[in-house]
């Protein structure tokens, strides 16, 4: 019998999450958490090595009946859309745990339990092939993050946690409506209930009522856009990202389920949506506005972490825009942006956390000249900032270049809007870097220690990955291209 590898990478974090709760102190908890994440990473790497990038089919499938009378099954699988995202999660989490290793702040066993639970839920979303299971994991990601923000967050944590919860909960409920509608119409058409995602997506085209098809598409899209988040549903993000503890912000960054839903669900439905052109325009417009608006907002921030949070909105705009590009390379660029953004933002938020801990402030104007005192941090942070603003040779460039170039084929107007943002993006990154790392050192901070060995190690590894995938993206990009070709071929069939 084959090892049920997908079940393992989903269940191990949950299991260890319970185990960490049983530990007596922080030392045991972090060791258990690290063990769990290393096992998950090993399994994921093993899976990755046995993964066939040349097929768009689901691989490593698992199946078990769950609620047969409603057609709900426990069904897992992985393909080129989900593999890179699972990989991203599996890679970053162990280093995130190492990063928090000597964090003297009260990171108790509950903290690590929540961290692992989030990892399990997020991976669960990526590998679920059953809509019910998908939704269960989707909702489960909310709970640990909610607690993480409200227990260890900053001064306005309660407001941020509730805002995040309500906002995204409403988003997912609307998505649930869409799932219900899809499920029941498919049930009526085929006579048997079935919650399988691929089955439901393939039944979508047979819904005779055009209005229902539009509404179903919009309901699902809404759920994803809130999660990404895209303008105008982004207002939960700055609060949640900023108030969350550093590890929480990184977990938010790894929460790529919104963009994933776009590729897994929205794109396959798109060709059969009656108002397809309108929907594509809406997506492209929201994407480019997110890019531009997010960049302007980032430019206006005084708080470094808040700036990074807004830059995140701007970067996630590329995902929506690339998906609306409807060319295989623009779509794979968007997928690559998710992967790249996860890596880059992890370092950016870690840097914000370190600076805040060392100096007690994140206000850009109060900082300055940190490079002299914290050279290791400066090097790594510099690399992340450069990657974030799109310097060639790093992952951010590849993703954004692909999105902009290939989306231009179908959506020239919106690409031009987005290109305006490139200048602003460069501006706020360089400006922030210059004012925090260089310039005159603010003497009131006294003597600053550079980042600890475990922090350096974990940040450096992620930084090296940014460089590696920036120079050689093919290990993840190939499978993305395989799957985007399949997604786009659907469009060709319907004659778009």
């Amino acid at each position, binding site marked *: 019998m084959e090892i049920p590898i997908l079940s393992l990478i989903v269940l191990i974090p949950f299991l260890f999450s319970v185990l960490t709760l049983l530990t007596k102190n922080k030392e045991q908890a972090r060791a258990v958490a690290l063990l769990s994440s290393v096992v998950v990473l090993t399994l994921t790497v093993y899976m990755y090595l046995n993964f066939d990038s040349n097929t768009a089919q689901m691989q490593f499938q698992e199946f078990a009946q769950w*609620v047969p009378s409603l057609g709900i099954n426990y069904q897992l699988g992985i393909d080129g859309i989900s593999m890179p995202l699972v990989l991203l999660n599996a890679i970053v989490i162990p280093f995130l745990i190492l990063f928090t290793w000597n964090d003297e702040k009260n990171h108790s066993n509950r903290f690590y339990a929540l961290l692992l639970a989030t990892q399990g839920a997020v991976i669960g979303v990526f590998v679920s092939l059953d809509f019910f299971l998908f939704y269960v994991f989707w909702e489960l990601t909310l709970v640990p993050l909610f607690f993480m923000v409200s227990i260890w967050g900053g001064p306005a944590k*309660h407001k941020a946690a509730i805002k995040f919860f*309500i906002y995204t909960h*409403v988003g997912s409920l609307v998505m*649930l409506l869409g799932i*219900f*509608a899809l499920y*029941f119409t498919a049930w009526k058409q085929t006579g048997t209930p079935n919650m399988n995602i691929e089955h439901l997506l393939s039944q979508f085209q047979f819904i005779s009522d055009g209005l229902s098809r539009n509404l179903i598409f919009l309901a699902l899209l809404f759920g994803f856009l809130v999660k990404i988040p895209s303008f105008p549903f982004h207002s939960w993000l700055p609060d949640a990202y900023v108030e969350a503890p550093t590890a929480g912000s990184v977990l938010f960054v790894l929460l790529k389920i919104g963009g994933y839903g776009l590729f897994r669900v929205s794109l396959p439905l798109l060709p059969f949506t009656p108002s397809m052109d309108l929907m594509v325009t809406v997506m492209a417009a929201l994407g480019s506005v997110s890019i531009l608006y997010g960049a302007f907002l980032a430019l206006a921030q005084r708080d470094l972490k808040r700036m990074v949070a807004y830059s995140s909105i701007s970067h996630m705009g590329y995902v929506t825009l690339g998906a609306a590009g409807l060319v295989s390379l623009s779509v794979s660029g968007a997928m690559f942006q998710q992967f790249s953004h996860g890596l880059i933002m992890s370092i950016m938020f870690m840097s914000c956390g370190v600076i805040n801990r060392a100096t007690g402030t994140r206000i850009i104007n109060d900082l300055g000249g940190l490079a002299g005192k914290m050279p290791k941090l400066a090097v790594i942070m510099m690399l992340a900032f450069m990657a974030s603003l799109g310097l060639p040779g790093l992952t951010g460039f590849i993703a954004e270049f692909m999105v902009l170039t290939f989306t231009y084929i179908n959506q020239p107007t919106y690409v031009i809007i987005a290109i305006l943002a490139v200048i602003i993006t460069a501006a706020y990154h360089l400006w922030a870097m210059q004012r925090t790392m260089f310039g005159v050192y603010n003497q009131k901070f006294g003597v600053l220690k550079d980042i600890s060995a475990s922090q350096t190690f974990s940040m450096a590894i992620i930084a090296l990955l940014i460089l590696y995938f920036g120079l050689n993206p093919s290990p993840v990009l190939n499978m993305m291209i395989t799957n985007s070709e399949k997604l786009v071929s659907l469009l060709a069939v319907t004659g778009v």
Partner: protein
Amino acid sequence: MVDLTLLTPELTLVGTGLVVLSIGLFLNTNAKKILSYLASLGILASLVLVLTNLGNGGMLFNETLSFDALSQFFKIVFLSVALLVSIASIKYTEGNSHTEEFYSLLIFATVGMMFVASANDLIVLFVAFELASLATYALAGFEKKNPLSLEASMKYFMIGALSAALMLFGISFIYGATGTTSIPGVAENINILLGSPIGLLSVVLMIAGLGFKIALVPFHMWAPDTYQGSPSVVSSLLAAGSKKMGFVAAFKVFMVGLIALQAEWTTAFALLAVITMTLGNIVALSQNSVKRMLAYSSVAQAGYITMSFVVMSKTALAGAILYALSHGFMKAGAFIATAAVIYMVLSEKKDSEMPDHIDNFRGLGKRMPITALCMTIFLFALAGIPLTAGYMSKFVLFASTIEAGLVWLAVIAILNSAISLFYYARVVKYMYFLSSEGEKIAEPVPYTVAMIIAAIFVLAIGFWSEPFIYWAMEAAKVLI
């Protein structure tokens, strides 16, 4: 000779009730603890009997009692709730000289509910309804030195008496027009009521009469006061058990008896469902008394279940029936957890003004870890967080509205569900995020046992839903 095997669960309960009552006369107060164990055992035995006889169906006493999947399902709901309440009350009645009365009333109320579930005749239904109601009126006022409890009982009794009168009035019209009180008989002879003002009148009277018990807005006024004032274990029985009795009665009267008048009552129920859930949720937002909050949440949940009268499909009914079971465990559990907190508060400070104030839940995660954990499970289940019973039931019920094309209803229900999260999460926040100076407390065992059983079922229905959904579907088939 009538074969009474089908009736053994009820007979066992009646026997236990009488034995508990009569033995209690001869025991001194300290020894009365044994009665609570005896009563719990009796209820458990009855539950086991129902479970072992699931396959057997049939009619008794000139077809006035029917034993089918629906009645058995609801009997399981009532007995489970009664068992939880009875276990939790072991602590509550400790050292009380009226223990035997408490338990016999609890048992007779349960018997009444079980007969309602089996009733196939309007008169039997009414009598059983009253048996359950009279017992619960007395239970609500069990703390006879506590003015709040007396107020609760008084209000509940007045309104209950009025609603009983309305219901009886409605039954008399139905009887007058159709010439029978048998529920299937009414359905057969319904023609005369069709399109006549008497038909409309009887529908209105029945909705009002049953609406009081279910606590549909605008017939809900008594519920918050009664749930808040009654002893928490009794509130648990009222919200989780007695309310479900209202539903099973309504299912029988409307979906079997008055099905031909559907056009008259669907719109009414649609309106009532929407108003009930919305008002319940919105008012619950601003409550500081946890029991009152749970009472309004209970009103809101009744609104969800009422949606099944509007959708009227097999899935919807299965959802509603499953919801009744889930809500039984969730709400009973939540009230029992509150009871444990109140017990703690009162044992620290005898004359506490409002022992269920949300401030008393501060730091509960540290002070009473098991209670806090179970309460969190119940609250998340009530809010409909996945992998809990609440989610599964909402899933089936809400999904059925989409199936029937009633998207507007689904949207309202889902938005309500999102609102409700707010006040449930607030209690969780108090329990885990706000600290209190109090020390850790030894949690009273009976409450803990009852809560853990309820929590296990809440999670089991959420995780391992297939058998429960199958049961609910079977039960729904009886109606449609």
